[in-house]
Structures are given as C-alpha cells and as structure tokens.
C-alpha cells in the first residue's frame, strides 16, 4: 500500500515536472526576444553609468493582458531608442498588476524597493487610482499612458477637484472622449440623427464615456432613441440590443466599448441586415487586427482615436515598423503608442530640466512637474501636446473612418 502511494506520488511529480518544462519551453520561445532585448538595454545603460530608473505596472497576465503587454513592449522599445542616442540613459522595470488594485499596490512596493525614480504609473484605471495616492505621498513623478479615469489624477474625482499634481496622463480622460464624440456628432448631422448607444455597464471606461456623452448629447440637442447595456456575462450576443435599436429607427450607433465586443456587434448587425453608421472611440482601435474578424464589416466605421498605425508621417511609420519587427508582426495599438510617447516625453523633460540619475526621486519629481506643465511635446499621438497643472493632457482627437481596411482621416 505504502509502496503504491509512493509510486503514485512520484508519477504525479514527474508529470508536473514534465508539464512545467514543456510550458516553460513554449513560453520561453515566445518571450525570448523581449528578454534578450531587455538585457541588452540594461547592459547598455550600465556601461554608460547611472541610468534613470523608470518603473511602471500593468496587466501582463489575465484578461486585460493585451494592454499591459503592448505598453511594456513599446516602453522597452522607447527606452532602448533613448539609450541608443547616447546622453540620457533610462532603465525600465515593468511589473505585473493583473488589472487589480491589490496587485498594483504590491507592484508599487516592488518598484520602490528597486529604486524607481520616475514612473509610468499603471496601464489601467482602477489600479491606477489605487496607487496615485502613494505616488503623491512618496513624491515620485508619474505619467500614465492609458489610465484614463479621472480618479487617476484627481483626489476628488466626482468634482474633478484637488489633483494629485504629480500624476499626469498621456491619454484623454474618459469624460473628454464622451464630450468630444457628442460634439463631433452634433457638428456632423449627416452621419446620423437618431442615435442609439450600446455600452458595457460594468466597465468604468465604457460607462464613464457614456455618462458624459449622454449629458453633452442632451445639451447639444442630439436625439438619443435607444440605450442598451451589456456586461461581462452576456458580452457575446447583441441581437436583442440591435433589434431594439433598429425598431427605434436609429441610424447611428455609438459604441463606447473595446473592439472585442464591437466586432461582434458589427457581425451581428450585418447578419440581421441592419446598416446604421457605427461610431466608436479609442477602444475601437485594434478592430482591424482582430483575428478571425472579417474587416470588410468594419467599412465605414467612424472612430475618434489619437493614433492610427497607418498614418503616413515618418515617426508613426518608423514606430510601426520597429514595433512589428520586435513583436511577431503585431500591429501596435494606441496603448503602445501612448506608452512610447510617455517615455519620450519623460526624456524630453529630463533633458530640458537637466535631470541626472544621481538625483533623488523627489527632486526629479519637482523638476519634471515643472517641465510638463510648461513644455510642448510632439509625438505619435498628437502634435503640440500640453498638460495642465492638474495633469490632464490637451491634444485633439482625430476622427478617422475605415475605408478599404485602413484608417482614413476625416477632413473637418
């Protein structure tokens, strides 16, 4: 009996080991380029002596991992490019927070132990709101690539009052996107006059945009004929919402949601032969690269986005080319672009303020806060970008329409 159980245990252990080795081998192959790149980046900075330590956290595992990994990849790339120029040197440590406030706080602890001097804060909003207070308490400068909620930069988000002061955003705030969308539709009544909205009510990105869009739409006198909601548990079937929108006579559907559910909505609308104009926000970006999605369905979809990978300017083309070369031909989304801009904005501010690696995080924070509120930045996601004292970014969202499978800028 004892022998048998020992044998069983041994067998189970052997299987566990085999599985680990097999999985590690798979994972190892995929992540090898990133790792070797990170190593060479670190080696480069070490030889130059004294690199400024940039921290950051985002979901590298779990359902939101696509955003965190995009930010990490782009930030690593940007750090290497900055280091390659000589002069200013950066070192990056990007931790996993699994899109969870608790994990983001411990990631912050790990970064602080590492000696972080400047930070990319967090990729997603809810964890960002949890660590903002800590960045303020420890007086470390942070700029989030994509934490778009007001709670990331304001202590009192309900009234948009008492900003933290040292937390900046590279992306638009959610309310601004809603307001910009409503304003755009008010100025372009040819797109559609009877508006239906389908949004995800358990997601603060989606409901944040919706709330402000609705308020602004009422103010501008837009006619909203139908509002439909969905949540995580029923994000696969939209026939009911689409049917109701159709019955209400909507000729434009506003979709303040991410591209995953949006692709299903487009497919299902096509199946029921319902062809309104679809209007999305920056979360719609990425729909053209979604696997298994017929991009012809996205023809004529409008979206407001700060970045499109198909733009023809040199900066965007270089970025897209290099990013694809590093990441198995993956087309960069706006999260990657925002992260890339964050690193270069920090670099610009550091150069202007003469920040060196031997300065304390607190001194760097003062210097960078001063620079950010006064400087103008040109990057992938906008020209003449400026920041207010409260940390909100000011840049103009670009309206694009999808034509022949690429984004085409809409002339004002």
């Amino acid at each position, binding site marked *: 009996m004892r022998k048998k159980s020992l044998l069983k245990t041994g067998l*189970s252990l052997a299987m566990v080991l085999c599985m680990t080795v097999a999985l590690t081998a798979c994972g190892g192959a995929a992540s090898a380029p990133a790792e070797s790149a990170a190593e060479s980046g670190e080696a480069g900075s070490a030889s130059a002596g004294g690199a400024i330590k940039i921290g950051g956290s985002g979901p590298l595992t779990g359902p939101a991992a696509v955003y965190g990994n995009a930010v990490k990849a782009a930030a690593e790339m940007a750090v290497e490019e900055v280091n390659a120029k000589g002069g200013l040197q950066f070192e990056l440590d990007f931790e*996993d927070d699994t899109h969870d*406030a608790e994990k983001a706080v411990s990631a912050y602890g790990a970064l602080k*132990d590492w000696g972080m001097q400047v930070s990319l804060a967090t990729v997603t909003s809810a964890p960002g709101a949890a660590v903002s207070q800590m960045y303020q308490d420890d007086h470390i400068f942070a700029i989030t690539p994509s934490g778009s909620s007001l709670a990331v930069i304001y202590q009192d988000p*309900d009234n948009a009052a008492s900003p933290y002061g040292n937390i900046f955003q590279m992306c638009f705030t959610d309310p601004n996107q809603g307001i910009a969308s409503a304003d755009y539709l008010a100025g372009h009544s040819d797109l559609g006059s009877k508006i239906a909205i389908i949004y995800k009510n358990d997601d603060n990105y989606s*409901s944040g945009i919706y709330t402000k869009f609705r308020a602004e739409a009422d103010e501008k006198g837009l006619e909203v004929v139908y509002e439909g909601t969905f949540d995580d548990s029923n994000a696969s079937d939209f026939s009911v919402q689409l049917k109701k929108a159709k019955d209400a006579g909507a000729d434009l559907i506003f979709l303040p949601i991410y591209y995953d559910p949006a692709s299903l909505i487009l497919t299902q609308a096509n199946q029921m032969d319902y062809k309104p104009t679809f209007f999305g926000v920056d979360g719609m970006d990425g729909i053209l690269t979604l696997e298994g999605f017929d991009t012809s369905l996205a023809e004529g979809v409008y979206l407001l986005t700060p970045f499109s990978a198909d733009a023809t300017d040199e900066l965007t083309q270089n970025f897209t080319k290099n990013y694809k070369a590093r990441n198995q031909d993956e087309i960069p989304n706006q999260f990657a672009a925002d992260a890339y801009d964050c690193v270069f904005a920090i670099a610009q501010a550091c150069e202007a303020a003469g920040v060196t690696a031997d300065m304390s995080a607190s001194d760097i924070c003062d210097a960078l806060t001063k620079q950010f509120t006064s400087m103008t930045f040109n990057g992938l996601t906008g020209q003449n970008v400026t920041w207010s004292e409260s940390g909100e970014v000011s840049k103009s969202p670009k309206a694009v329409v999808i034509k022949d499978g690429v984004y085409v800028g809409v002339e004002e």
Partner: protein
Amino acid sequence: MLKKLLDRTHRGRTVSYIMVVVLYLIIEIMIHSGNLSSLFTSLLVPVCCYIVAAIGLNLNVGVSGELNLGQAGFMSVGAFTAVSISGYLAASVSNGPVRLIIAIIAGVMISAVFGLLIGIPVLKLEGDYLAIVTLAFGQIIKSIITNMYLGFDGNGFQFSFVDNNTKLAPGGKMLLNGPMGATGTAKISTFTAGVILILVSLIIVYHLMYSRSGRAIMAARDNRIAAESVGIDISRTKMLAFVVSASLAGAAGALYGLNYSTLVPAKFDFNTSILILVYVVLGGLGNMTGTIIATIILVLLPELLRSMQDYRMLIYAVVLILIMLLTNNENMKTRLRRLKNRFSGRGRKEGEVS
C-alpha cells in the same frame, strides 16, 4: 494557568495565538528598524484580511461541514458597507481608528444579516444546497453593487439603480459609483488593526468550537441523524456557524476596503471565493493554525516570485499541486505525526479536533 494552556484541548489554540503575536512582534520590529521592504509592507494588511476571511470560512467548511462558495460575496458586502460609512463619516469623525471600528462593526452587521437571510431557507435543507446558493449569492452581489449608485451632498443622500440619475451639488461625494466602485477612500486600515482582528476572530472561533454549541455543530457534521436523535436542532447549529463565518468575512472585507483608495465590485468575484477556499483546504479543514500559515504562504508566494517574471503564475500553480500532494501523502503524515509526538513527549494519538 500555564498547565491549562498547554493541556490537550487548549494546546491547538495556544499555538495559534502565540504564532500570531510572535509574527506580529517580529514584523513590527522589522518595520521600526527599517528592515521591511516596501513590497512586504504593502502586503501586511491584505494578508490579515485574507486570514480573517479564511478563518471564517474554515468554521463553515471545516467545522460545520457545509461548503460555501460565496465568501467573497460577504467580503464585498462588508467592504462596500464599510467604505460607504467611512466616506460619509469622514468629515464628522476625523479620528481614523474610531472610524475604522465603526465601519468594521457596520460591515459585520450587514454581512451577518445577509448570512441570516440566506441561511434561513437553505440550511433547513440537507445536501449541497448551501454551496449552490452561496455561489449564486456571490454573483448576485457583484452585479447589484456594479449597478448601484449612492452619493450624498449638502441636501442628503441620492440613490439610483442601473441608470445613474444622481445629480450631486458641487462638493458632493459619490460613495458607490456603479462599476467604478468606491474611489477616493481614505486609507485607515493598519497592520495592528488587522492583527487585532485576527486575534478576535480566533477567540470567537475557538470559543465557539469548544463550547456546547460548537460540539453540536461538529456532531451535526459527523452524523446528522444521530445528532438529531439526541435533540440537536441541526439547522440552528449550522446557522450559527454560517452567520459567524459570514460576519468574519464582512470584517475582513471592511478592513480590505479601507486599505485601498479605490475598490471595484469586480474584485470580489468567484475567483476570490475559490482562492479563500484554497487557503482553507490547504491549511487543513478545521485547523485554524494551518489556515493562517497557508494563507500567509499563498498570498506572499506570487509576490516573492515577481523576479521570475512570466513564469511566476506557472510556478505558483506547481507549488499548489506540490502542497496538495505532500500534505495528502500518507508517508509524510506519519512522519509529521511522529515528529509532533516526539516534540510533545507523548506516545498517544493527538486529540485535536480536525
């Protein structure tokens, strides 16, 4: 006195108390001498919260023998109650610890009420119904809080459900903001409060376990028919364990919610319930000391493995499997028992409640 603490029935609990106090003292010394890293400092309060929730769940699953798959739901109720109360009282009660105590008591009471409401119909039944109902409860609570909007301004409270119709005057504050949960919470939870909460929950659970009611709970678990035949009211005794378990989860949730400046309803999902159940099962059903150790190890492990980057969740899973295999291995058990007996200098079998 000392003899009483070390005798057969009391030894288990004495070990628990001493372990918690010694760990607390070591960590406090490390904090004050500046030897504790920021990473560990940030983990102290969540570890305390999970321990309290796991102790509560162990009372229900281990001692009472009823499976509960919604412990995170009760934590959620406790957390959002506490966060709302603390947010509302922020101006009038400026003393942090006092507000924390009020918030925790409120969280405990509301969780207990929910536990009672669920227990009344379900615990009259025999079988796995509690597991099914608590599973549903966890999901329902998550959905309800996701759709709840509660705010207050100079004119009083405003509440709306599903659609946010609250229009606050300037200076107003949203206590619950739908899917965004609670934001801008003042962090008033402390490690000391967490340790006190652990000690209080240990005292409650041990006193219950070794009381007349506790014996009745275990009798009802081991043989329902026999227990009924000697006049034990099964549903009442099971109810007692379940409500205490829910209350402890509420206290854990309250402490947890007040430790972060933001809290989203999606945090307390099914996965969190299962995670707490894993702490309990790996720590040992009915074994509170084991639960505490298992919780500490399993909460710290993914953080200690941060340097492994991509492989850390993989290694975490492997460690879980290893712990399961090793703790269930007959060889290991025998050796462990022998070691224990040698340590205590006794040859006879352990008389601990399991």
